[in-house]
């Protein structure tokens, strides 16, 4: 019995057929990675100043940013995405301007809504980390005569980043999980590729199994990466423990 024959008739998933379509799944993988890395990188950039404003309780800005994070963390990302993708067309103000060239594209809508949503989450994670920097370290920095900006740069932020790392790694995994929503607005990410594959061959779920395996591999890789990163950043902690 040939491998193809076995794959077609006996295997739970027709893996030879999947292998034939590797470019499709590769395209999906590429798009998923772009939708993961792009918004995450931007979110990290935006979250730092926002978290600083929240942690320092800057009078009016703090309220506004809190309203923003509450709104985006309190509602489903799917609805946010739909609001942007389907909702934008309702206003002629948007349809007649250059904004429409962006908001008409599913790709940009996904990119923007993912960025807004993970910025909200990362801001709150970072705010928590900044607020729990030990008082003694801040006092020590003051006693050494550090200016507020030096203190922020050398003491508070490095400490907060380290503290936020475990929660951040969780957030990265959740962001990966939420990139699948892109497939609901016609983007071919991993799940989108799986759906195309299923539709093409009238399969019920074979593509989803492949997608699940690919996502598991990604999560495993991300976990590994963060273990390594934590090992570097938390090295001083593990040394303390051994002595």
């Amino acid at each position, binding site marked *: 019995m040939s491998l193809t024959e076995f794959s077609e008739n006996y295997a739970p998933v027709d893996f030879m057929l999947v292998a034939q379509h590797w470019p499709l799944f590769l395209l999906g993988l590429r798009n998923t990675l772009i939708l993961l890395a792009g918004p995450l990188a931007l979110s990290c950039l935006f979250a730092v100043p926002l978290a600083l404003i929240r942690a320092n309780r800057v009078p009016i800005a703090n309220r506004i940013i809190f309203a923003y994070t509450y709104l985006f963390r*309190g509602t489903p990302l*799917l*609805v946010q995405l739909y609001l942007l993708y389907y*909702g934008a067309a309702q206003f002629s103000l948007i349809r007649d301007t250059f904004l429409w060239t962006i908001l008409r594209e599913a790709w940009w809508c996904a990119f923007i809504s993912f960025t807004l949503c993970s910025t909200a989450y990362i801001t709150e994670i970072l705010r928590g980390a900044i607020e729990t920097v030990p008082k003694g370290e801040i006092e020590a920095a003051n006693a050494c005569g550090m200016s507020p900006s030096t203190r922020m740069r050398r003491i508070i932020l490095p400490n907060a980043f380290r503290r936020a790392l475990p929660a951040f790694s969780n957030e990265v995994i959740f962001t990966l999980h939420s990139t699948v929503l892109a497939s609901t607005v016609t983007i071919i990410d991993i799940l989108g590729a799986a759906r195309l594959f299923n539709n093409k061959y009238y399969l*019920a779920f074979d593509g989803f199994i492949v997608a699940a395996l690919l*996502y598991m591999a990604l999560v495993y890789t991300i976990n590994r990466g963060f273990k390594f990163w934590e090992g570097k950043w938390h090295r001083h902690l593990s040394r303390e423990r051994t002595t």
Partner: protein
Amino acid sequence: MDAVVTYSPFVASGIRITVALSLLSLLVAVVLGLLGAWAKLSGSYAARRIAELYTTFIRGVPDLVLMLLLYFGGQMALNRLGAITGLWKHIELDAFTAGVLAIGFIFGSYMTETFRGAALAIPRGQVEAGLATGMSRPTLFRRIIWPQLVRHALPSFTNIWLTLMKATALVSVIGLEDLVYNGYAAGKATRMPFTFMFIVLMTYLAMTAISDLGLRWLDRRYSAHVRAERPA
């Protein structure tokens, strides 16, 4: 504005589905979470491994993928199993059941970690003291373990519930007429997609805010004795 009034019963029926789905999946998740935590803390190696596999698997697969897999694949698997064992005939797995099972299954794994952590926070001595005073196992659970389990688990339980409620939006993808699905349909019919999606968004926000308040009240009740100790 007229369109919103006309379509409000339609949207309201979506809210009913979303709330029912959330509560039922929560029930499934809590049961699975308690079972999972018990397995993880049990002495049996096999039980620990299975629970471990369960939580790792859920962390590795996005919720929508799992839901689609269960909706399209689960039915086939169930029927094949039925045909082999001869225990049941053809089963139709509707979108609602698939949604409840998938969401319950996913959040059960998060509940597992929550309950495990909460159970570990109960001092062993209390269990021993309870047994020493002659409490039966069920009494011990009801009087000593459960109240403390709730208190320790509540903050993380709140988070999971809020995430779960938002995750139910995904069932609209498998065609269940929930809040998102109906909001989308109403927006399409009236050519006012933004208005209706915004209403949907605000409804979710309201549900989040209400749950937040309710669970905070519960938290205060269950940790009243801890708070009373603090000023002293």
